[in-house]
């Protein structure tokens, strides 16, 4: 049967499952008949952007995903890289933006819950969580409400799980006023041979549904994430799931106890689109089919229809494929943790997903159509008009508005550069007894128990650069994440990315997305770091206004010896030097934001070859023991980086620059040197004895090393421009985010 003679359902119904009329017709053609309402719901969910990546899939193929250390690339619940000693590091980042905008506590909490499941589903014990957050201007009460709710939700879930929240970032910008971003990253560690894949096998094997009962929460969450928010979004509150971290903790321990158990064939968590997507992906990955009986699904509400059971996004649930005849033993293992489990289906060999409600078949669809034949969208792309005019504007028209000393204090006290301590102390960042460098440095460092190694973890992203040049902005996010790791002495191993963008049906947004993916690919190739997992969050629009393009990069690095990790903290008596160029721009800088409130001029230049050399040089210097500290010199510029190093070490620094370069007094040129933002730069400290060797090393890498001065005293000085008492800097920095 062809779609030509089919009655297309009303537009509201198609909108509810986020399908276009053309996509509906494709489904009818593939199926040879009109889908029933349950089938339409299943198709809509699996063909949604959230599950099917229908807009982003053609772009994502551009990302480099291979490398000698890659054990698992994109396509599984999470990616994995080899860290040596027979161990794998498993990690992924995921967004929970739309739910968090509606209900910040539960939105953020279940975001954490979901990413944890992705990692322990792979057999890895989660060892760390990180969060990348974006809100509107903090002086608005509603934004403060969102921040409070999200931070409480992350803490409420993560703290209860006993997984430390060790890092992340938070930025405030007008662009996120109506669409906050909540991206959560989880990192786990497992032996290579215990890495679990979610591929079903063995027709006739029973399928267990384990964990929470199924309720009406979260129905249409996947399609919800694939449409824009508007005034009616409040009514979507039921689409926001409610988390139960205690249940998830028990689920995690039970699943980890079963890792390596031959009775278990495959494990898949239930995330977006619940049973529908997890069953389809689990079966299809293994080249099998699956039959489910919704009548056997334990429910927490009466009167649920098969449609509601299949599309519920109730949290804390897992599907487990068990060897036939072993179901009772595996159920007993879950019962030990007071977890309910039910046999809800069977693996089949026919490549279809068949849903029964007791005796009656209520849906019957071919899996290749649902998973492989997602109708891809190729929307038009167009560079936004007006960008050139913004790029051409003077970054700082007129003289600097404040004396440099005051500017430094204002930057340190700004929401985007102030101390994150008031937030981080609300997360348990130590549980697990592995946190060597806590939140607040460039990257968190955890030791790998039983080895001399360490893992460095970070997330990064800067939308201010991206709105002017999404390709460069995304490449900078990759480079800055890598610099954060290198600053601890860690070699970057792998990337996970979360692409937060507006409505891709707008040509300008699709252009931003395409450019950003290209930028990530270029930077990853230049630095030799593959992308092993990721997530796409589109339709971050409210009432037609899109967020600025916000690719967030999560990155994992390895220290051969965790004892040699570096932090930004300065030590009295050492020398301070800048690695990389002194030149920087006020274009798109935090200084510009505070001084003018506008965005103007080109964002920082990025030379990927220079970036690679600078990182290689600092990594080699760290490995050779030539450095006492290192810090990425980026947002806020040289002066802020120096202040951060001083505050971390509790000591001042007496630095100076050549007056012929800086000029004297209050010029835009001097402001650019102090507060301009540039790439490929580190602020390092080292003993005087190491200086000669360090210079030779930098020369060999053709990297500039500029000696700035000495650590000591109780003032932050860059002669002849800046002189701020350390105490005043500390007060400004610490007060920035205090509630």
């Amino acid at each position: 049967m062809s779609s030509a003679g089919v009655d297309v359902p009303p537009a509201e119904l198609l909108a509810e499952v986020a399908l276009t009329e053309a996509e509906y017709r494709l489904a009818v053609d593939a199926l040879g008949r009109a889908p029933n309402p349950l089938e339409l719901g299943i198709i809509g969910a699996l063909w949604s952007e959230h599950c099917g990546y229908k807009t982003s899939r053609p772009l994502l193929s551009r990302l480099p995903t291979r490398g000698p250390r890659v054990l698992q690339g994109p396509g599984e619940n999470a990616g994995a890289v080899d860290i040596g000693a027979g161990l794998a590091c498993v990690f992924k980042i995921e967004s929970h933006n739309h739910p968090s905008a509606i209900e910040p506590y539960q939105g953020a909490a279940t975001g954490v819950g979901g990413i944890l499941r992705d990692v322990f589903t792979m057999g890895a014990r989660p060892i760390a969580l990180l969060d990348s957050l974006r809100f509107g201007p903090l002086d608005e009460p509603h934004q403060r409400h969102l921040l409070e709710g999200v931070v409480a939700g992350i803490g409420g879930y993560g703290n209860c799980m006993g997984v430390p929240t060790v890092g992340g970032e938070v930025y405030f910008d007008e662009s996120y006023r109506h669409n906050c971003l909540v991206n959560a990253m989880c990192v786990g560690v497992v032996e290579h041979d215990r890495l679990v894949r979610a591929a079903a096998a063995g027709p006739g094997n029973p399928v267990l549904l384990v964990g929470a009962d199924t309720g009406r929460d979260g129905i249409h969450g996947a399609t919800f994430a694939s449409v824009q928010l508007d005034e009616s979004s409040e009514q979507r509150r039921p689409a926001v799931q409610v988390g139960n971290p205690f249940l998830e903790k028990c689920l995690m321990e039970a699943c980890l106890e079963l890792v390596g158990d031959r009775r278990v064939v495959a494990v898949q968590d239930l995330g977006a689109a619940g049973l529908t997507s997890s069953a389809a992906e689990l079966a299809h990955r293994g080249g099998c089919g699956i039959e489910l009986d919704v009548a056997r699904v334990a429910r927490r509400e009466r009167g649920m229809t098969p449609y509601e059971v299949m599309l519920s996004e109730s949290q804390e649930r897992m599907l487990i494929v068990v060897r036939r005849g072993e179901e009772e033993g595996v159920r007993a293992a879950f019962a030990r943790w007071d977890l309910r489990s039910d046999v809800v289906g069977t693996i089949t060999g026919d490549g279809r997903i068949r849903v029964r409600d007791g005796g009656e078949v209520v849906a019957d669809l071919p899996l290749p159509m649902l998973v492989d034949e997602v109708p891809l969208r190729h929307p038009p792309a167009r560079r936004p008009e007006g960008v050139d005019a913004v790029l051409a504007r003077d970054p700082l028209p007129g003289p600097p508005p404040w004396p440099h000393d005051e500017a430094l204090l204002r930057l340190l006290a700004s929401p985007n550069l102030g101390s994150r301590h008031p937030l981080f102390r609300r997360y348990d960042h130590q549980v697990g007894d592995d946190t060597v460098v806590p939140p607040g440095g460039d990257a968190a460092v955890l030791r790998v128990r039983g080895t001399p190694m360490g893992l460095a973890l970070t997330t990064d992203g800067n939308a201010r650069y991206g709105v002017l040049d999404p390709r460069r902005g995304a490449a900078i996010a990759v480079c800055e994440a890598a610099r954060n790791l290198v600053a601890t002495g860690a070699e970057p191993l792998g990337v996970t990315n979360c692409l937060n963008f507006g409505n891709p049906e707008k040509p300008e947004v699709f252009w931003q997305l395409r450019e950003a993916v290209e930028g990530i690919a270029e930077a990853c190739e230049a630095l030799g770091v593959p992308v092993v997992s990721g997530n796409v969050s589109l339709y971050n629009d409210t009432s037609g206004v899109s967020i600025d393009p916000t690719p967030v990069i999560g990155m994992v690095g390895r220290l051969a010896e965790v004892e040699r990790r570096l932090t930004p903290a300065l030590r009295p008596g050492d020398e301070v030097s800048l690695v990389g160029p002194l030149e920087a721009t006020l274009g798109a800088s935090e200084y510009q934001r505070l001084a003018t409130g506008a965005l103007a001029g080109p964002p920082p230049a990025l030379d990927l070859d220079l970036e690679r050399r600078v990182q290689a040089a600092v990594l080699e210097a760290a490995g050779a023991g030539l450095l006492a500290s290192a810090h990425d010199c980026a947002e806020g510029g040289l002066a802020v980086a120096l202040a951060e190093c001083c505050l971390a070490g509790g000591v001042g620094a007496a630095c100076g620059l050549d007056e012929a370069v800086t000029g004297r007094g209050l010029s835009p040129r001097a402001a650019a040197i102090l507060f301009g933002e540039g790439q490929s730069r580190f602020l390092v400290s080292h003993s005087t004895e190491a200086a000669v060797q360090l210079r030779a090393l930098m020369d060999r890498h053709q990297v500039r090393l500029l000696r700035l001065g000495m650590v000591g005293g109780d003032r932050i000085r860059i002669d002849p421009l800046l002189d701020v008492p350390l105490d005043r800097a500390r007060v400004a920095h610490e007060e920035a985010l205090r509630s």
Partner: protein
Amino acid sequence: MRFGIAVFPGTWSERDCAHAVSLDGHEAVMLWHRDADLRGADCVILPGGFSYGDHLRCGAIARFAPLMDAVAEFAAGGGLVWGICNGFQILCEAHLLPGALLRNASLEFRCEPSWLRVETEASPFTAGCRRGDVLRIPVSHGEGRYVADPQTLLTLENEERVALRYVRADGGPVGEDSPNGSMRDIAGILSEGRNVLGMMPHPERACEPLLGGDDGMAMIRSVAASLDRAGAFIRAGENPRTPR
């Protein structure tokens, strides 16, 4: 030396505690909440976490676990019981220690360093310290504000049963820097028999310089040394006064 470490559903410090005692060469065995069996432990640790999801009240459900019957019996016979964080909350709920732990005065979860002044050497947990020593041991809790009625507080002070008190890094009164607003800045208290200690901070997180300090190790060593003085404390299941 064998440390028995309780595992309730929702407990998450059990592996940290096992790791910490193993650093000093001791054996750690896990004690499952459903089993009233201390597995021959010389000292029982009730570790941190969110037992039973902290549903109802922190520690309120854990006190009914079969394991807690064995722990109460062990404590009554003079056995060493060490409640840390959620373990302290459980001990209060089980009435093995007086008072209660309420929501932090800040109304926020707090994970940060705290400084604890050792208030008595007369306990197996602090015998290896000097009175007045300041230990740097982190806190990580949302409900750690110790409260008790005036008579109980007076008794605790008179009997020198306040083992640890929050202070500033320099040993001065903690004042507004208190992590939770506890009455009399109380961080840890002893039972009447001085063989049960409850404390909110996490000594198991302060046992290695790599992780920021090893002041917590002084407490583990104190316990081990106390147990070495044979006869001072008894082994689980070998208590002559409470035959099984």
